[in-house]
């Protein structure tokens, strides 16, 4: 038989691109893209985007030798990313600050931002621990890092991030998926039914979700966003949309698809799922906006909504869905972020 179904046969000389994360900074979208080389090693690109009419202008900025786990912006519009090997990377000008190294500029790129990096350690009460970063969020008191062991760390400066909250339970896997800031609190969402809340000036405490105790360990909270009245709206694997106001949680809608993202966009709320895009009018209903596209995490980019394309047309493409909605245009586009 000549049928070769060997799944490890790589395409295009073995180099493949995959979108890892996206964020808004200084009014434009930024993308972290993984590139897997012939040997299977994953490194990453940070790519800046800018919408010009219907065309997404893309500008590769910097290459880093490991997998970027998350990318966010701070209140100054600067970009921060963290890798699986605990490198913190930013385009903030930290050239004069001890401990930061300038990332070697790529020889084929010129006139780009200067990027700096340093290696972080994770320090808990009993010393250094091995952690895999999952998500980031800039709060007023520093950079919050959620990890695969369901711990939260906070970094302000120097080479260590310190333990903020520990939800790790031996034998329960799955990490923190998202950290969300609302006007009066910060929330951390994750596996094992994790909903943590830290009110302004307060401390972290766990909030019970609207499910029976027995089910808690198996619930997976994926992402959240601030709702219309300052509460948190969060999505859980399976499709529940949960509202968290103070310590009160309730299920406010059920999306008929596997949800992966939730975002506010032009004063409406949307859940992106593997079946398409749904609007949450807030009355318990869900309204199908776009059918049969596979959407991952989505962000509000002003006159467009940008979501990860969970099924790009080719294996070596990193692609997004882009919903452009302006006064005179309403269109769904599918730009390619990069390819081999």
């Amino acid at each position, binding site marked *: 038989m000549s049928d070769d179904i060997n799944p490890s046969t790589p395409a295009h000389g073995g180099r493949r691109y995959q979108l890892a994360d996206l964020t808004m900074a200084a009014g434009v979208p930024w993308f972290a893209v993984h590139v897997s080389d012939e040997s299977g090693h994953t490194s990453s690109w940070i790519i800046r985007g800018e919408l010009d009419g219907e065309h997404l202008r893309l500008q590769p900025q910097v290459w880093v030798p490991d997998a970027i786990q998350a990318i966010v912006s701070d209140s100054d519009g600067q970009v921060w990313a963290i890798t699986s090997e605990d490198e913190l990377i930013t385009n903030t000008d930290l050239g004069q600050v001890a401990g930061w190294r300038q990332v070697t500029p790529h020889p084929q790129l010129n006139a780009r931002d200067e990027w700096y990096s340093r290696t972080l350690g994770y320090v808990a009460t009993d010393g250094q621990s091995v952690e895999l970063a999952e998500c980031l969020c800039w709060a007023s008191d520093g950079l919050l890092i959620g990890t695969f062991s369901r711990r939260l760390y906070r970094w302000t400066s120097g080479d260590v991030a310190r333990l903020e909250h520990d939800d790790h339970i031996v034998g329960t896997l799955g990490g923190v998926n998202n950290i969300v800031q609302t006007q009066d609190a910060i929330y951390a969402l994750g596996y094992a039914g994790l909903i943590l809340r830290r009110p302004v000036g307060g401390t972290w405490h766990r909030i019970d979700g609207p499910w029976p105790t027995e089910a808690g360990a198996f619930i*997976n909270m994926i992402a959240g966003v601030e709702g219309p009245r300052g509460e948190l709206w969060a999505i859980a694997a399976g499709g529940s949309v949960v509202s968290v106001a103070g310590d009160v949680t309730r299920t406010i809608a059920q999306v008929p698809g596997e949800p992966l993202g939730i975002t506010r966009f032009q004063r409406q709320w949307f859940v992106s799922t593997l079946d398409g895009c749904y609007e949450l009018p807030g009355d318990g209903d869900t309204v199908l906006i776009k059918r049969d596209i596979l959407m991952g995490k989505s962000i509000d980019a002003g006159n467009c909504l940008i979501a990860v394309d969970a099924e790009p047309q080719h294996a070596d493409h990193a692609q997004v869905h882009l919903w452009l909605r302006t006064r005179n245009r309403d269109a769904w586009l599918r730009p390619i972020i990069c390819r081999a």
Partner: protein
Amino acid sequence: MNSSFAAMTLMRNAYEAALRAPSDAVAQAAFVAAHQAQQHTFVDSFDVAGITYPRTDGHTLSEREAREVISRILSNPAYSVSDLRPSVIEAAYPLQADVLRAEIEATVARADKINGLDWRTDALDASTKQAMRELLRMPTLAGGYKIISQVRSAANAQVLNIYRGYDADHLIPDKALRGSLHRGQSFSLDQSYATFMQDSQNRGSQHKFVTDAQKHTRKRLRGDPTLLAKNPTTGEYLEHVLEWMTHVYTTADLGVDVAVRNSGLANSDEFKRFNVKGFALAQAGFMTWNERKSVGRAVAMVLLIEAREFYTAAGWPMDRELPLFYDVPSTVTQQPVPVT
């Protein structure tokens, strides 16, 4: 009997009536109307020995998927009610009488027995292996149409190739065994067994979970990066694999695996539109969480025992060193700039 089961009964009666009288427009319309009215009604709890157990989102996947496909069929004028297989109606609208406690309890009893084994030394008898496979109806074969047709025709499925992994019938990705983070097969529709997900993105998805579980395990096994790396044995590594596989099988959405149309899956187009592909543990959705955990672990255990037997037979014993770290380059070269 709770009221949602009553709604299911109504639905099934409407189906019977429509099926009996294919030319009766009233009966046909009544079924369509009933489907529209009930498609968001789910059985939200079930009783076991007098105790009421709630169902959660992950439990209702099979109903949601099957109903979605019924809607798709009904919205197409080329098809009618008689095109639907009875099995898809049964999956979409389960009855109280369909909940086979005896079957579930037998499954859990078998699972508990399996969980008492030591995967590194114990063997399984053929009937247990077969029973678990029946239970599983594995998603590896429920992938893209192309893969399935290739696998069907591939006579070389048993050819030993350690780097290909223990072929399609289990969920330890071959790359996971090598500790590589570069998994093929899940990039695009044509390649995947989980057609919709990429590995690097989609926080909260099983793929991202498995990817991060591997990264995390690798980091923990690596230990202090300033010291010389020591590779684990294959057995030591698989000990970790067992943990994340247990998690995957316990929390996987439970869906049935049914063909929707009587004509079967005639071509790839039909397949994409009308196949409900599933990951079906017995009586999907009517097990308690603790029962699911027991069964999930047993599935992982069986697959791991089979993998061990396969690798041992292929001349790769469990005490052999797994080359996790040998290929880490000490110097990095920048990747070429991608095409944007």
